[in-house]
C-alpha cells in the first residue's frame, strides 16, 4: 500500500472571547491508499476539527491552523493557495457531514447540487453530468434516480439525503472520502445501511475512507487503522485488533469499558469514565487525561507522555505507565 496522505504535527486553534481554544495539538499520522481509518473520541476531542483542517474548511478567523504539514500528492495542502485547494476539495478529497437534514441546500434540487460538483471538476457537459448524477443516485441505492434528481432535499427522507450526500461526494471519484459522523443523526437501521453502503462503494471504487465517529462499534468491523483522540491529541493508534484486544491507553480502556456487552449479566452497571475532558482553553501541562485517570502518578501531571511504540511498529500509545498497567503491576 502506497502513502496517500501524511499529517505532520497538525495544530489548529480558535480565538474566542473566552481565550484560545486549542482544538488540535500536534497530530501526525499517515494513511495508505484504499485504507479505512477510524477516528474515535468524545465530542470536542478535535476529531472533526482535524478533518476540517485537512480540507482547509476551518473558518479563519476565528480559526487558525498554526503549525504542521499535510502532505497529499507530493504537496503540502496547507501551503496551497485558495485556487489550488479548491481543486483538491471535492475532486481529490470529498467529505460527508453529520447532519443530512441541513447539509443540502434547500432551494436547489438534489440533481442540481450533484451536477454542480460534476461540472466543476470534470469535462462533462450538463446533459452528460445529469446522466452521471442519475447513475450515482442509483449507485447509492436511491430508486427511480432520474425522477429523484428533480426533487428538492425536503422531499427526501433523512437516510436518502445522506445517500444523496454520499453520491455527491463520490461524484468525482475522490481518492479520500472523509465521513464525519455520517450516521449519528440517523435511525439505527438506516445507520447500518449507510455503513454497508460506504464499505461496498469503497470496495468498488478503491478509495480511502476516514470514518470519524464516537461509536467504536461502527469502526470495529471496517477500519484497518484506528486513531483514538483525546483533547486534540492522538493518544493511541493501531489496528482494530490492537485497539480492541491489546488496548494500552487507560482512556481507550475507558471507552471500551463504556460499551455495553452482550455477554454481561443483566443489571451490571455500565462503566463510565469519571469527570469531564479538560478545558481546551487551559490545557494541563502534562497528560490531558490526568484528571480522570485511575493510574495517574506524579510524572503524568507535569510531563506530556510522547507517542511510543507498543509491542509492534504500528501500534503506538501516549502513556507513561502502559507497561506497568500491562504487566498488572498497578490496579
Amino acid at each position, binding site marked *: 500500500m502506497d502513502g496517500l496522505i501524511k499529517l505532520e504535527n497538525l495544530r489548529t486553534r480558535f480565538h474566542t472571547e473566552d481565550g484560545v481554544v486549542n482544538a488540535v495539538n500536534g497530530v501526525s499520522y499517515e494513511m495508505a491508499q484504499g485504507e479505512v481509518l477510524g477516528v474515535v473520541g468524545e465530542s470536542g476531542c478535535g476529531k472533526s476539527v482535524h478533518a476540517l483542517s485537512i*480540507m482547509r*474548511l476551518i473558518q479563519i*478567523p476565528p480559526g487558525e491552523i498554526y503549525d504542521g504539514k499535510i502532505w497529499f500528492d507530493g504537496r503540502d495542502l496547507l501551503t496551497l493557495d*485558495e485556487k489550488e485547494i*479548491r*481543486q*483538491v*476539495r*471535492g*475532486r481529490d478529497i*470529498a*467529505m460527508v*457531514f453529520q*447532519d443530512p437534514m*441541513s*447539509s*443540502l*441546500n*434547500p*432551494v*436547489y434540487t438534489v440533481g442540481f447540487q450533484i451536477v*454542480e*460538483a460534476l461540472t*466543476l*471538476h470534470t469535462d462533462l457537459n450538463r446533459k452528460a453530468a445529469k446522466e452521471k448524477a442519475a447513475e450515482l443516485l442509483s449507485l447509492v441505492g436511491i430508486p427511480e434516480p432520474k425522477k429523484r434528481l428533480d426533487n*428538492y432535499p*425536503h*422531499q427526501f427522507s433523512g437516510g436518502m439525503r445522506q445517500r444523496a*450526500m454520499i453520491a*455527491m461526494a463520490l461524484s468525482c471519484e475522490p481518492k479520500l472520502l472523509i465521513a464525519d459522523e455520517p450516521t449519528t443523526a440517523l435511525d439505527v437501521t438506516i445507520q447500518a445501511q449507510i455503513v454497508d453502503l460506504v464499505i461496498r462503494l469503497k470496495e468498488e471504487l478503491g478509495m480511502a475512507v476516514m470514518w470519524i465517529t464516537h461509536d467504536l462499534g461502527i469502526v470495529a468491523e471496517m477500519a484497518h487503522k484506528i486513531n483514538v483522540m483525546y483533547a486534540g491529541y492522538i493518544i493511541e493508534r493501531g489496528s482494530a485488533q490492537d485497539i480492541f484486544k491489546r488496548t494500552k491507553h487507560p482512556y481507550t480502556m475507558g471507552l471500551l469499558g463504556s460499551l455495553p456487552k452482550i455477554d454481561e449479566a443483566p443489571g451490571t452497571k455500565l462503566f463510565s469514565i469519571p469527570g469531564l475532558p479538560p478545558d481546551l482553553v487551559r490545557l494541563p501541562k502534562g497528560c490531558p487525561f490526568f484528571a480522570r485517570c485511575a493510574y495517574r502518578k506524579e510524572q503524568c501531571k507535569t510531563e506530556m507522555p510522547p507517542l511510543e511504540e507498543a509491542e509492534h511498529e504500528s501500534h503506538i500509545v501516549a502513556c507513561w505507565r502502559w507497561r506497568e498497567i500491562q504487566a498488572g503491576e498497578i490496579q
Partner: protein
Amino acid sequence: MGRYILRRLLSVIPTLIGVTLVIFLFQRLIPGDPAVAMLGERATEENIARIREQFGLDRPSFLDRDALAEGDLAGFFDSQYSRYFGRLMRFDLGESIHRRIPVAETLKERFPATLELSLLSMSIALLIGIPAGIASASKRNTALDGVTMVGSLIGVSMPIFWLGIMEIMLFSVFLKWLPTGGRLPTGVEIQSITNLLLLDSLLTGNFAGFVAALKHIILPAVALATIPAAIITRMTRSSMLDVLQEDYIRTATAKGLSLKVVLFRHALKNAFLPVITIIGLQAGSLLAGAVLTETIFSWPGIGKWVYDSILGRDYPIVQGVTLLIAIIFLFVNLVVDLSYAILDPRISLE
C-alpha cells in the same frame, strides 16, 4: 400552489374590513361635535347640516336599536358605518370639506408624484442596501463591516425630516445647486403619459425636462431612502451571516466551489427570503415617510396633501389617503408572501 395563493388572497378580506373599521373609528376620536370641529366655530347652519348629511352624523355609529324596536329591520342596519362602507364599495371616498371636490379625484391626480418619489427611493435603498449588506457579511469583523454597521445604525436613527432640512440648507441655501422644493420649475412642461415625470420625459425624449425633474426629485428621494437603505443593509447582512453558518454552505465549499459561487449561488438565494419581507415592510414606511419628506420639499404628492388636510381639519382626505396607503401596504405584503412561494420550494408543496 394555487390553493396557497387563493388562501392568502382570501385572508386579506377580513383584514381589509378591519382596516375600514379602524379608519371609520378615527372620526369617533374627534373631540366634541365633529361637524363643528371640521368647520370651526363660525360655521353656517347650512354647512353644518351638509357635513352631518355627508357623514351621516344623525345616525348611530353601527346599529340602530331604536329603529329595530319600532320594527324597522332596514333602519336597524342603516348606520354611519354601513353608509361609509357602502360608499367605499362604490369607490367613493367622500368629498373634501373645504373645496368640496371628491377625494378620489384629487387622489388620482396627486398619487403619481408620491409613487414616483417612493419608487426612486426604494431603488436607491435597494441599490445601496443589498450590495452593502452582502459585502459587510462576507467581510465580517473587518473595517468595512464596522463602517457599514455604524453607518447603517446612524441611518436607522436619522430623523428624515431633519436630514431633508439639512440637505436643503447645504445644497439649496448655501451651495445653490438644487432647488428647495416642488416637482418642476415653472416654465418646464413634460407631456404626461404615466404622470411619473422621470419616465415621461424619457419617453418623449425631453432631455431638459428629465434633468429638471431629476434635480427636483433627488434630494427628497435621498432623504426618503435613508432609513430603508439602512434597514435593508442590516437585514441583508444578518440574513447572510445566518445562512453562511448553515451546513449546506460548508457542503458547497467542500465541493470545491469558489467563494463567489458559494456566496452568490448558494447563500444569496436563501438569504434573500427574509430580506424580501423587510423590503415589503419598508414599502409601507416609505409611503408614511412621504408625509414628512413631501412636506419639507413641497412635493405635490399625497403626503403633502395629508399634511395640509390635517392642518385644515379636512378629515375625509386624511381618511381617504390613510385607507389608500393601508391597501397598498397590504397588497405589497401579499405580493411578498406570494413571491416566497415562488422562491422557496418548501412552501409550494403545502
